[in-house]
């Protein structure tokens, strides 16, 4: 066995281990798949609306500024809309909730987490957020009060009361609520890493350039080495 085939074997063994681990960690959560597209302006703007109308009642996204909402080409909202959203806050201020931490603790027992990094900061990412928002059910054991039992939340007992009123919703509203959950998941996925579309776009050119460079250097190497036997 030479070193090359050995390396290939090691790579294969490692990737098998990685994939079994991924299966094992995702397997016990049964997350639903979120239909999101972080480059889809309409979905992101719908998600922004859900975020400001529902989430921001309690949650902040302090790393996302109102100016940022104007500057990110994926959102590209107008100055008027930014002014409307920010109220009397500064344009460079983060999107912070008006609920004070003290009041939040009083009402819900804990301070709601900042949502700027909620998608990269949770296993399952956007799928987890979507599944959480559409995961409110009645506690099978009947112990946890309605609105505090969530089938995907670790431990199932969640302090956040059913934000989209998913529990016992009318059958006719299912599609609309799922759409809201998807849209806000997309928005949160976008603000978790707001340069991700730019990154992927530039990445394509970088890979293209490097492929060409590798080709040229390969030919150069072969040319220089052709007399060596």
């Amino acid at each position, binding site marked *: *066995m*030479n*070193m*090359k085939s*050995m*390396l290939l074997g*090691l790579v294969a*063994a*490692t990737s098998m*281990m*990685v994939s079994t*681990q*991924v299966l094992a960690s995702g397997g016990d959560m049964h997350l639903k798949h979120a239909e999101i597209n972080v480059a889809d302006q309409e979905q992101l703007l719908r998600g922004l609306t859900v975020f400001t109308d529902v989430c921001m009642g309690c949650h*902040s996204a*302090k*790393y996302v500024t109102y100016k*940022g909402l104007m500057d990110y080409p994926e959102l590209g909202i107008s100055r008027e809309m930014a002014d409307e959203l920010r109220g009397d806050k500064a344009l460079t201020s*983060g999107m*912070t909730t008006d609920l004070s931490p003290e009041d939040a603790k009083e009402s819900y027992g804990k*301070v709601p*987490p*900042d949502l*700027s*990094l909620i998608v*990269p*900061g*949770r*296993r399952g990412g956007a799928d987890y957020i979507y599944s959480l928002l559409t995961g409110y059910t009645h506690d099978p054991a009947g112990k946890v009060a309605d609105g505090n039992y969530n089938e995907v939340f*670790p431990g199932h007992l969640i302090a956040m009361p059913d934000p989209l009123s998913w529990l016992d919703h009318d059958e006719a509203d299912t599609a609309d609520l799922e759409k809201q959950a998807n849209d806000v998941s997309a928005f949160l996925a976008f603000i*978790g*890493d*707001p*340069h991700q579309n730019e*990154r*992927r776009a*530039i*990445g*394509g050119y*970088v*890979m293209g350039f*490097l*492929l060409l*460079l*590798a080709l040229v*250097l*390969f030919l*150069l*190497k072969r040319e*220089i*080495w052709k007399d*060596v036997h």
Partner: protein
Amino acid sequence: MLDTIMKTKVFGWVDRRLGLEAIIKSQLTEYPAPKNLNWMWVFGALAMTVLMLQVITGIFLAMYYKPSAMLTDGGFSVAFDSVERIMRDVNFGWLIRYMHAVGASFFFLVVYIHMGRGMYYGSYKEPRELIWIVGVVILLIMQGAAFFGYLLPWGQMSFWGATVITNLFGAIPVLGEYIGQILMGGFSVGDPTLNRFFSLHYLFPLLLVAIVGGHIHALHTVHSNNPDGIDLDQHDPKNVVTFHPYVTMKDAFAVSVFLLFYSYVVFFNPQMGGYFIEVDNYVPANNLQTPAHIAPVWYLTPWYTILRSFEVKLVGIAAMGASLAILFVYPFLDRSKVRSARYRPMYQGMVIMFFIDVIVLGYCGHSAPTETLKLVGQIATAYYFVFFLALPFLPMIEKTRPLPEGV
């Protein structure tokens, strides 16, 4: 091109004062490299490339990063905020930061393959023992630098990883508690820890660059090993090519292929499914809330498994220390006259098993502990030491294959 430059007046002026021509000749244009070196010999150049990338990106990150654990709105800290500012507001800050974070993982990947190459082809053996030993020092400094760097974003995994590892020192008898406190700058991981780790994270790469210089100097004194592990007459053109342009062009091509892999991860998958940047590190450090599962980043997990394989904490620490210390005496444990595993059938099997063993150790260290994994980890730990301790006795029973005359 190089010849033209060397004929200019300016070059002559410098050369008379610096002896530049002699250096260029002895280290580049007339430095001999065995012509049968295979592609496994490019990883040293790749490691140098990543080291330079890390230093350059790190300098720019340090212009914006603020090492302070002072709390800000929403349970974040000044340090965490400054990292997010780099990711969101600094022009191409996201690129520099992802390059640096992903670069750490690639650095270890490349260096581990580089070490595996040395182990497989016997590059650590006489007369190259010091190259290997200096290399082990480089590995230890890299691990230190990576550990210090991982604290800087002040996320949950930063905080708890540092807490677990600094607490280890507490188990060392007599001095342990003192060493732990010196390291943390207090009685627990906090703001003073963050400041001194930032300082050390800047110091260690400087040491690294200096010691890499020593590593290469030692190499250029005794010259490269080769896949057959045989002694070559380095002046006979039948055996060797000059470093420049032959090896430099081969390395340049290897670097471009390396950059393809690296750029793919940086631009399309920088978190690498939580392996390169862990999910929990997007959550700000909270000393009141322990994450469900604390594990070091993948490149430190083999040693973490060795540590966890023992019930008594002190024994675990001693074993982890021994697993690194034994690398220093590796060249002297191996008594066989034959270098390359190509001509050592028993060593070949053992060293391949060893590579698999380290991957198994790494897997066990990264996963949440279960009874089965613990047992697997213990067996893997045992083999780790058996591999080294069996080496002195191997020549008694191993029948080596005949070595080729030349290349």
